[in-house]
């Protein structure tokens, strides 16, 4: 199955208007949270499987992003997946340099182990480069716009003189890419995304990409929430609070980043002086007779301090700083999602107004309005669920991160 690229799900290229609203019924039945899942829904669904249907018989287009996410979110009983219940493991390792005529680049090995039924094999191992990860992320954003997609490490290195192929840079990137995939894996909705599966399994990703683009151009615009001039009256409190939080959060992280960088800089300057300090004791030792041993000893100790300090600074640069930056990127992308949500709500409100003004009863409009309304609700629900998850994860991450920093410092002093 991995060899033949699968056709894109039908929801992708269709415009939003053509999509049958999954919850649209002739009656104004409240289909929301009162929905009881059918036994079918509890099974992990296969990508090609379109047999799922709601209890009332309405055909459900499971590949519709709005529906699947909201449904699954309601199915999700426990946010924190235990290791035992996990059925998908992904790792990124083994970076290799490839030299071609046109360019030189690095690929990483992506290994997948899974028991999920929708995968043909229990294990996969493919090679991917940064471009591919970027593609995946874009696809996820497109196909799951109501969800928070984890960030990728920066595409371009701002520092200028950093070697793209240096060991430290490649390793830092590898860790970030690994984190990226693991976050997707942990996500109850994203991990079932088709693009994700293809990414993990396809031998030739480029062919799949091309196909996708071909289909796109054939079928017109993909699902995109048009940011067309809709002004939001007011953000609901909870989202406003999230927005404020994110603002302050990225601000604080930015400050911490700067502080950490400053500390590293000061430490390096300290190191420079220490490096001059140690040998002076040695010189003195050469001058003395009885004191030469203790003086040499001091010199050697200072040398040790230098090495330990170097290690500390390196560790901080490699482990601590990237994670901070990552979360700042995360916060940025989250803010974007919030904006999109605002857009959706604005559209909905505008349409509502339009109806009220026109006092017409066009058949499409109610559906339209309902569509919007539902989109908004889905969005909101997804966002909330994701936020909770994100908060938890973030807490864990930072806990680890800061503990790690503390540990490193402790080790330094012990040395």
């Amino acid at each position, binding site marked *: 199955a991995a060899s033949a690229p699968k056709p894109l799900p039908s929801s992708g290229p269709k415009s939003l208007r053509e999509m049958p609203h999954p919850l649209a019924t002739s009656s104004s039945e409240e289909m929301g949270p009162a929905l009881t899942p059918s036994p079918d829904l509890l099974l992990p669904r296969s990508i090609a499987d379109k047999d799922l249907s709601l209890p009332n018989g309405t055909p459900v287009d499971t590949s519709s992003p709005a529906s699947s996410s909201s449904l699954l979110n309601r199915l999700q009983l426990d946010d924190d997946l235990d290791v035992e219940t996990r059925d998908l493991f992904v790792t990124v390792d083994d970076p290799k340099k490839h030299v071609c005529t046109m360019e030189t680049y690095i690929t990483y090995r992506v290994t997948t182990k899974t028991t999920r039924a929708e995968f043909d094999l229990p294990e996969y191992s493919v090679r991917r480069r940064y471009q591919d990860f970027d593609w995946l992320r874009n696809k996820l954003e497109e196909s799951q716009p109501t969800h928070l997609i984890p960030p990728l490490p920066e595409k371009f290195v701002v520092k200028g003189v950093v070697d793209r192929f240096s060991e430290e840079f490649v390793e830092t990137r590898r860790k970030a890419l690994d984190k990226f995939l693991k976050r997707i894996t942990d996500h109850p909705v994203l991990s079932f995304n088709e693009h994700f599966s293809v990414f993990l399994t396809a031998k030739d990703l480029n062919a799949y990409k091309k196909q996708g683009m071909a289909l796109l151009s054939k079928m017109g615009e993909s699902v995109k929430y048009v940011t067309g001039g809709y002004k939001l009256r007011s953000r609901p409190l909870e989202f406003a609070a999230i927005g404020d939080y994110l603002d302050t959060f990225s601000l604080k992280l930015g400050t911490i980043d700067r502080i950490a960088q400053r500390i590293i800089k000061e430490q390096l300057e300290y190191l420079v002086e220490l490096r001059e300090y140690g040998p002076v004791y040695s*010189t003195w030792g050469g001058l003395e007779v009885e004191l030469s041993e*203790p003086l040499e000893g001091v010199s050697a100790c200072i040398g040790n301090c230098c090495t330990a300090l170097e290690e500390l600074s390196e560790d901080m640069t490699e482990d601590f700083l990237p994670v901070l930056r990552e979360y700042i990127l995360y916060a940025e992308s989250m803010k974007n999602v919030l904006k999109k949500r605002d857009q959706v709500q604005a559209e909905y409100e505008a349409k509502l107004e339009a109806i009220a003004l026109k006092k017409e009863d066009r058949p499409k409009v109610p559906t339209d309005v309902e569509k919007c309304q539902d989109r908004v609700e889905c969005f909101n629900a997804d966002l909330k669920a994701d936020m909770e998850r994100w908060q938890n994860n973030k807490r864990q991450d930072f806990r680890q991160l800061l503990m790690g920093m503390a540990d490193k410092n402790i080790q330094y*002093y012990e040395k």
Partner: protein
Amino acid sequence: MEDCLAKKMEITVSEAEKRTGRNAMNIQETYTAYLIETRAVESQSEGQCAPVDSLWRRYSEFELLRNYLSVTYPHIVVPPLPEKRADFVWHKLSADNMDPDFVERRRIGLENFLLRVASHPILCQDKIFYAFLTQEGGWKEMVNETGFQLKADSRLKALNATFRVKNPDKRFTELKHYSDELQSVISHLLRVRARVADRLYGVYKVHGNYGRVFSEWSAIEKEMGDGLQSAGHHMDVYAASIDDILEEEEHYADQLKEYLFYAEALRAVCRKHELMQYDLEMAAQDLTCKKQQCEELATGTVRTFSLKGMTSKLFGQETPEQREAKIKVLEEQIQEGEEQLKSKNLEGRDFVKSAWADIERFKEQKNHDLKEALISYAVMQISMCKKGIQVWTNAKECFSKM
């Protein structure tokens, strides 16, 4: 150790006070006066303390004392005074002589100086020194009356001797070399140490910013809030701890400085030797010259070209009576010269012997002191690291509760 003053008497420089007064040029100035307290040790019996004598002295008086000692005992390595002006400062330390920290460290240095002199087997017996400790009024006059300034060798003379001496004792040459190197290495060390301290200060202080940010961050967090807040507190503690650490290190620096200045004292002894040796060589040369002259006059042969010889050839020779008179004068001079040479030789040998004895004593003292200083420095470093471990372990705990 012989019966030295330190054993009989407790000496402390216990206080420092700012004073204003008029100096020699009748200009108002501010200076610091130090209180010297002395108490006889032997009269302590059954918990009954002897009365404490005290008097005030200022730094310039200490300088006068030391100058006197250096001139009067040129074969002794005289303990140095603490620095006159703050040197080797890193930016946090003030270079101001009136700064309380500087004054405090100077007070300790002055006390150390007095104790060193008091423990020296020869110096402690000096009357002027004793008077310095016990007699407030009229001490300056007493010192000046000794006329020691006249005994002082001019700098120029000493410099001249250093260049022209032909046969100094090898040991002194080596010692001079050593003290030059020691001076250079210690001052290099102190300079770098000051820079190191500066940088370390920077590192610690920036961590204080963490405290502030964590605090602000914790305000917007729910579950992470408490952990962040307490961790921030620990960062503040960490940042504050550097002040004490560096203050302790200053004491170490002071110990090194003492030996930096001691190197100068060593050099002074070597210079004295060179001077004496040069004097000796000059005297010997002079004597040889005179002897030669005598011989020439007596035998009538002119061995060396001299203006006298030429003029006498041109204008006629002297009368035998004149010659006789000259020879007699010369013979007297030669006798004097020979006696002088003998005594100078003796002086020189005595000097070398006693100087070398004191140098040996000094070497032992130096090795002992510096070893202790290095050990205490290492201890300081270890304690600094322990504190660091403490702080970060606490912080870690806070983080783990997030």
